[in-house]
C-alpha cells in the first residue's frame, strides 16, 4: 500500500487514539495533554509564518495577546467565554496586522530583532499597566467556559477531560485549516516567496501582502491557543509569554523540522514527552534535554521528521545498496506534488 493511501486510515487511527487517550491517563497527565495540544497549535501556526521565510520572536507574545484579550473580555466585559476566545484570537490577529507595517519593512535578521523588540514592548505594557492587565501578577481567576446540554446538564469545563475534548476539537479544526491553507494557492505562493522572492515579485506577487497575511493568520491561531490556555489554567501573566517560552517554540519547530507540516508537531510532542519522562531527574533534566537537542542538530539536520529517511538510508547502506543523501527522496511538502 502506498504511503498516501495509508494517510486516511492512519489519521482515523490517530483520531480514535486521541479520543480514547484521556481515559488511559492519570489526572496530571490529562492536564499535560491539554497543555501539549495548545502548544501543538502554537508551533503549527508558527510554521505558517516560517513558510514565507521569516522567523519572528513575537509569536508567543501574540499568543499572550489572545490570552489577555479573551480573559479581559470574559472577566471584565462580561463576554461569554465562547465569544471571548475567538475575539481574543482576532485581537492577536489585529495586533499582527498593525505590526506588519513596521516589521515587514525589514527582513531576515533585522525582522527577527524587530519582532523581538515589538514583542517585548507589548509584554512590558502588560507589566506596566496594572489596570487592566494586572501588572506583574497578571490576571487570575479567569472563568472557564460554561455549556449546558439538553439531557446532559452542565458540562464542567474546568475539569480536564471535558476541556481536553474542547481543546482537541479546536486544535483539530485549526490544524485542518492550516494544512489546507498551506497546500492552497496562497500557501504555495508563500512558499515561493520564501525560496524565490524576487522571482515571485517579477510575476506580480505582492510579497509584502503575502508575508503580512501569513503573519496575521498565524497570529490568529496563536491568539486562539492563548485563549484556550488561559481559560483552563485560570491565569495569564507576562512571564508565561516571555522570550524563554518563545525560545522553546523555536526549539520545538527546529528540532521537529520545518520542511513538513507535521515536523513542528513531532518536535513539540517528542520533546515535551521526553521532558516529562525525565522529570524524576529533577535538576539534571535541562542537561539531558540540551544533549538531545545537540544530538538532533548534529545528526538530524532535517529535524526529527527526517529520522525515518535516515534510518531507511542507513538500512540500505548496510545492505550494500548505494544510499541517497538523507532526505533526498523526500518530496518537500512545499512542492506542487503535495498540493492536494
Amino acid at each position, binding site marked *: 500500500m502506498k504511503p498516501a493511501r495509508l494517510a486516511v486510515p492512519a489519521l482515523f487511527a490517530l483520531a480514535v487514539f486521541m479520543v480514547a487517550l484521556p481515559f488511559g491517563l*492519570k*489526572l*496530571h497527565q490529562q*492536564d*499535560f495533554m491539554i*497543555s501539549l495540544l495548545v502548544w501543538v497549535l502554537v508551533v503549527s501556526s508558527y510554521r505558517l509564518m516560517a513558510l514565507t521565510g521569516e522567523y519572528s520572536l513575537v509569536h508567543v507574545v501574540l499568543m499572550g495577546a489572545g490570552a489577555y484579550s479573551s480573559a479581559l473580555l470574559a*472577566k471584565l466585559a462580561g463576554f461569554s467565554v465562547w465569544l471571548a476566545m475567538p475575539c481574543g484570537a482576532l485581537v492577536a490577529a489585529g495586533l499582527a496586522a498593525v505590526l506588519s507595517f513596521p516589521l515587514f519593512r525589514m527582513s531576515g535578521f533585522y525582522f527577527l530583532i524587530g519582532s523581538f523588540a515589538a514583542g*517585548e514592548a507589548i509584554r*512590558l505594557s502588560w*507589566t*506596566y499597566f*496594572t*489596570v*487592566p*492587565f*494586572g*501588572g*506583574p*501578577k*497578571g*490576571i*487570575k*481567576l479567569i472563568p472557564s467556559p460554561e455549556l449546558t446540554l439538553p439531557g446532559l446538564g452542565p458540562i464542567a469545563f*474546568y475539569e480536564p477531560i471535558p476541556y481536553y475534548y474542547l481543546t482537541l476539537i479546536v486544535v483539530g479544526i485549526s490544524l485542518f485549516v492550516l494544512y489546507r491553507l498551506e497546500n492552497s494557492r496562497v500557501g504555495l505562493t508563500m512558499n515561493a516567496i520564501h525560496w524565490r522572492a524576487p522571482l515571485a515579485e517579477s510575476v506580480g506577487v505582492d510579497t509584502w501582502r503575502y508575508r503580512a497575511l501569513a503573519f496575521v493568520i498565524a497570529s490568529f491561531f496563536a491568539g486562539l491557543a492563548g485563549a484556550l*490556555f488561559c481559560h483552563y*489554567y*485560570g*491565569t495569564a*501573566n507576562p*512571564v*508565561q509569554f*516571555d*522570550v*524563554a517560552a518563545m525560545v522553546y517554540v523555536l526549539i520545538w519547530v527546529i528540532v521537529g523540522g520545518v520542511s513538513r507540516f507535521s515536523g513542528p508537531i513531532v518536535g513539540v510532542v517528542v520533546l515535551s514527552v521526553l521532558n516529562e519522562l525525565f*522529570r524524576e531527574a*529533577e*535538576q539534571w*533534566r*535541562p542537561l539531558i534535554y540540551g544533549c538531545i537537542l545537540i544530538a538532533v542538530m548534529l545528526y538530524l539536520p532535517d529535524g526529527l521528521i527526517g529520522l525515518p529517511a535516515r534510518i531507511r538510508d542507513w538500512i540500505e547502506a548496510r545492505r550494500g545498496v548505494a544510499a541517497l543523501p538523507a532526505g533526498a527522496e523526500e518530496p518537500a511538502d512545499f512542492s506542487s506534488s503535495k498540493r492536494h
Partner: protein
Amino acid sequence: MGITRRDLLTATAGTAVLGSSVIPRIAFGETKTLKIGFLAPLTGEVSAWGLPGLYGCEVLVKNINAAGGVKIGDDTYTLELASFDDEYLPDKALQGFKKLVSEEGAKFVMMLGGDPWPGVQRFANQSKMLATTLLPSDLSPDTPYLLAPCEVHPIYNVTGVEYLARTFPDAKRAVICAQNDSLGIPSVATYEAAFEAAGIEVVDVNIFDPATTDFAPLVTSLLAKKPDIFCYDTAYADFVNLIAQQLHVQGYKGLQISCTCDNYPQIVEKTSKEFMEGFIFQFPDFDDPKLNEPFINFPEPNKFFADYNAAHPGTWTAVSWEYPSIIVQWIAGAKLAGSIEPMQVLEAMKSKPSWPHIFGEAEWWGQDLWGINNALVGKWPVVVIRDGKAVIAEYGDIPAWWAKNKDLMIKHMRNRKQMWDQRA
C-alpha cells in the same frame, strides 16, 4: 487544647526521644508513611528559591526519620517527600499539584507561590487541600486553604529598616531598585512605608525589567542621587550579586540593605569585606548562636546547618530553612489535630490566635492586606554582615511596627496597586 513550643519541639527534634520506643514498631512494619508535597521551581531562573528548599527538607526529613519518625494520634509515621518541578509556570504547577495530591497522596503541599499559584488555586479549593506559600501576596479571601506560615514577604523587611534607622540615625536619603515583578513591587511599597516611618526620604526608585543583565547604568543613575542608603529591595540572588559588584566598582561607600543576600560569601569574595561590612538583610545562616534562643521553634538549627552544608555544600539560601520550618509547623498542627487529614490539621493550626512560628510565637494575620488572616506574623531576624560573615543583629517585632504604621503601609501598598482588592 493548645500547643506550646515544648509540644512543637517534641514533635520534631523531640522525635529523637521517640526513637527508642518507635524502632521496635518499625521492625514489625507498623510505621506508616506520610507524604509531604513539595511543588516549587527546581530548574530555571527561579530555582534558587526552590531547589535549596528541597535540599533543606530532605535533610530535615532524614533527621526526623533517623530519630524514629513522627507520632501523630495513635500512629507513627516516617516522612517521605514527593517533589515536582513547577518551572515557575501555572500549567506545570497545576499538573504537579494534581500529581502530588491525587497520585502521591501528599497530605499537604508546600509551594514557593507567586505566578504558579493562580493555576493551582481552583483545584486546591475543590480538593480542599492544605497548601503553603512563601509569598503571602498569594493570599486572598478566595484562598481559604492556603497558609503563609513562615515567610511574610515583604512585611518583615520593615525590621531591617527600623534597625538601620536606629543604628545609623544620620542616614536620611535612600534609593531603591527592584525588578518589575510580583516579588519586587510589593517589596518596594513595603520599603517605601518603612523608610517613611523611619523619617528617611526615598530620593529615587528604579524599577527594572527582570531580563536586565547590565546594571551599570542603573547603579550610575541611582548613585547620582547621592544616597546614604542603597536598597536592593527583593532582588533575585543574581541581581543582588551583579548590583553589588557594580556598586563596588563605582566606589559606593554608603549603607546597603536588602531583603535577601543569598550566596553572600561569593559577593564578599568578588567585592571586599570592607565593602560588605554592615550589609543588612533578613535571612540568617543557621549556625548563628542567636538561633539557640529558647523561643526558636526549630529542631537543632546549628546541627541542621552543618548537616545541610555537608550534604549540599555551597547551596545554602534563604529558602533552605523556610520550607523545613513549614514541615515543623505542620507536624505540630497534625499532632494537635491528632490527624494527618488536611482540613483537620488546618483547623487545628487556625484554632488558636497565635502559633509557634520559627522565630517565636506569632499571630494569624493579614486581613488588612490580603483579606484573610492566613499569614503568621511575629518576630523576624535582622541580619548584618560583619567581617564577611552574616550574624543576627536582633529580632525585629513586625506586629509592633504594624500597630504604629498600619495606615502608612496600606497607603503605599495601595499606591503600588498591591492590595488584594486591586489585583486583576
